[in-house]
């Protein structure tokens, strides 16, 4: 039986697997977050938010998902 091995990534320090051909927007939604309300750092660089739908997750990517803090 063959199975899509997907991509192995780290999200906020935890190992996860995501399906082949997953965009960053999809990955964020898959873990239950609203892509409009987080920033994403990928391999130590912030991903421009207008490209979340286009940038594909790659094997070995390390992500930090940052929630905005707006309090004063």
């Amino acid at each position, binding site marked *: 039986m063959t199975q899509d091995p997907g991509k192995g990534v780290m999200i906020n320090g935890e190992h996860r697997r995501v399906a082949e051909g997953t965009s960053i927007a999809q990955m964020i939604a898959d873990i239950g977050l*609203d892509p*409009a*309300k987080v*920033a994403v*750092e990928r391999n*130590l*660089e*912030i*991903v*421009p*938010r*207008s*490209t979340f739908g286009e940038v594909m997750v790659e094997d070995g990517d390390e992500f*930090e998902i*940052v*929630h*905005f*803090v*707006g*309090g*004063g």
Partner: protein
Amino acid sequence: MTFSDDELDRYARHIVLPQFGGAGQQRLKSSSVLLVGAGGIGAGALPSLAGAGVGRIHIVDDDQVDVSNLARQPLYRSEDVGRSKAELAARFAAERNPHIEIVAVDQRVDEDNAENLLSGHDLVIDGSDNFRTRLIVSDMAVKLGLPLVSGAAAQFQGQAALLTGQPCYRCFVGEAFDSDDCDNCAELGVLGALTGTMGHFAAMLAIRHLAGIGPSDAGTLHLFDGVRARWKAITLVADPACRACGTPG
């Protein structure tokens, strides 16, 4: 610009710093800073700014002191409850440094008054308590070409960054918060020591920039995780599609 004997004594620990010196002190004295918000972040930032001798500080806040502010806003005393924060904050600063000009602005920043409030300053520190205001302030700072230090805190998480045009604050948070989607301390809670930490750190970023200390830190977002007691710095990038600082078309 010359310094009086009192100023030389007052700023002696700064002037003796090799990276700061008389030149850095003069740059601070000739600087004008707008402080948006006299809450937890503002209360952390203001004593450092005023004490350091930033020549002119305008403090904008339309709020009054609430008893629940006292745990994290040491500008105010118990008997100040109900009184204007901007005016009390201005008095606090004036009592601590007679050589600087302090102006209290008892207003809330909105689309209509932002240009007036920001114009004429050298740097803006935003310690307001909601994203809508933060985006208005950032968009206007980009339009006017003013450096912005954004300082924020909620629960145990702090974020602060110096932003000089590109990337801007809107590159970071995007479009989701232009509505009055308030991320405020009343709903979420916040540790007083955290707002103080982030407010002082915002003042640090501002003073570094104004006095010309060290390499530029523009575009670096500093995150403080108060649960783990760890700092982290990440590099923001300009979003080409950002409607504040992106390239039109």
